[in-house]
């Protein structure tokens, strides 16, 4: 049976009648229209435009993920037992983690007349808090935030680590985020600051509004627009400004570990903080190799396994060593060229 092409064309165009719709549904449903429908769609396929209308990178990530999950794994009975056990262990560990998440150092410090609060997020859990002025802050792993308990005078906070801010607007009152090397001045906006003391780079990524980034010496002063990333190389003393997809930099708030064409040397740094492990890359050429991927709630073994699928690398997870005081050292992982 032949389909009526105009009906399908109207359906595709979006301007169609109920009769059109019923016919198109019939064409798709009934087998005797199949050849005719298929021919028409084949023509349409060839004339369909290839213009990018939507970013599909996350779909590729999902596929990578699924491919890895579906790979048959040889499991011996002992390992099976272990897997069952590790699942139970995970259930027990979750409440423990929640408890540990509250294990901030919540100190009150007094400097001069101003009283400060200091939060340190330590474990692999993302922490969010509301500041006295209604602004919200999310702290990534191992991040320290210091802020005055009284916000009426000035809104100035200090960050060592990575934090995402949603600053509440207050008249013409500035909100200032200080890191060791920079200060970010804002009115009301959303942005991410990455400023771990031990890292060579400090970055600020803006998602909404407008911020001004300055260094202490006053030699740098940049105003950022949304989806711009400002980075400062502390050693080279150079600053760069680039366009980015700002959401990629906030994904950690939702528990996503996300890499966007980042060199492996940066990737492992994030993983070290995320999983509280030490990772060493033994082959220099791997360090500069870019990697892209998104993970949510995956154990580190799974992340490494997925990475090794698309990167010419192999990895070794070393047994934890017991320290002199009977504690366990951090897990040590080495990555080298395959």
């Amino acid at each position, binding site marked *: 049976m032949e389909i009526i092409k105009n009906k399908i064309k109207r359906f*595709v165009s979006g301007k169609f009648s109920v009769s059109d719709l019923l016919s198109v549904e019939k064409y798709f449903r009934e087998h005797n229209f199949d050849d005719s429908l298929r021919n028409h769609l084949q023509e349409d396929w060839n004339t369909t435009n290839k213009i990018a209308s939507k970013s599909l990178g996350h779909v*590729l990530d999902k596929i990578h993920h699924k491919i890895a999950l579906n790979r048959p794994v040889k499991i011996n009975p002992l390992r099976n037992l272990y897997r069952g056990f590790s699942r139970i262990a995970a259930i027990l560990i979750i409440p423990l983690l929640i408890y540990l998440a509250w294990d901030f150092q919540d100190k009150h410090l007094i400097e001069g007349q101003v009283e400060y609060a200091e939060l340190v997020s330590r474990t692999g859990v993302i922490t969010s808090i509301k500041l006295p002025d209604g602004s919200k802050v999310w702290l990534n792993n191992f991040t320290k935030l210091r802020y005055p308990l009284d916000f009426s005078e000035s809104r100035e906070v200090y960050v060592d680590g990575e934090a995402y801010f949603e600053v509440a607007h207050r008249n013409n009152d500035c909100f200032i985020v200080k890191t060791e090397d920079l200060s970010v001045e804002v009115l009301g906006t959303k942005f991410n600051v990455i400023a771990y003391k031990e890292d060579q780079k400090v970055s600020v990524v803006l998602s909404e509004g407008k911020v001004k980034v300055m260094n202490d010496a006053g030699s740098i002063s940049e105003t950022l627009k949304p989806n711009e990333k400002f980075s400062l190389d502390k050693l080279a003393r150079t600053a760069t400004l680039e366009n980015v997809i700002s959401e990629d930099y906030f994904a950690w708030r939702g528990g996503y570990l996300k890499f966007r064409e980042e060199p492996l040397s940066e990737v492992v740094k994030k993983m070290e903080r995320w999983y509280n492990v030490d990772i060493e890359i033994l082959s220099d050429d791997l360090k500069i190799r870019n990697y892209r991927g998104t993970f949510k709630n995956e154990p580190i073994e799974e992340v490494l396994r997925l990475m090794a699928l698309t990167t010419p690398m192999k990895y070794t997870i070393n047994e934890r060593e017991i320290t002199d005081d009977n504690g366990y050292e951090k897990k040590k992982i080495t990555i080298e060229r395959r």
Partner: protein
Amino acid sequence: MGHTLSNHTKHTDFYAVKSLKRGDAKAFDNLFNKYSQHLYNFSLKYLKSGEEAEEVVQEVFLYIWEKKGGLKPDTSFNAYIFTIAYNIIKKHFNKKAKSDAFKNDQIHTLLKEENALDKAIDYKFLLEKVELIIDSLPERRKEIFIKRKYHGLSLKQIASELNISPNTVENQLSAAQKHIQKELKKEKLAGLLFFSLFISI
């Protein structure tokens, strides 16, 4: 069609497909980057939902990966991907048509009364409208209605599940039905018609 272009396309796919056949993940990514957008745009035309179009992209490429061993580098990859896409889109389309069937009936009833079955109409708007109306039904009535029309339960099943008489179920259903038609009629149909040059078949 430009012959040089299509020859060129074939040529580059040949090597990518050959590598993919061996399990090369990089080749897979390259083919994804080359075809995913085209596939997305195509699926969107028929499924009219970005989310579903993304699902099609995912299913098609997962299928390609799973069956990579059987790939034939000499034949057109473009044609191969269309064939897979066609089958998957068809599956999605039929599933959606089935789950929309009830809403379609409502719209059909309305337009038949208005003699507008052959008029091009803002269908998407009407579908959303029906959904909104169903959503605004009183809680109990909505529950019964959804069990019957979406989950396909029988009057008896619903009655025993909710511990009420089948009669009550029936009354609730017909009240819901009346309410939907009454609310739908409030929409000014004229405003939903497209001024279009190709109204009749």
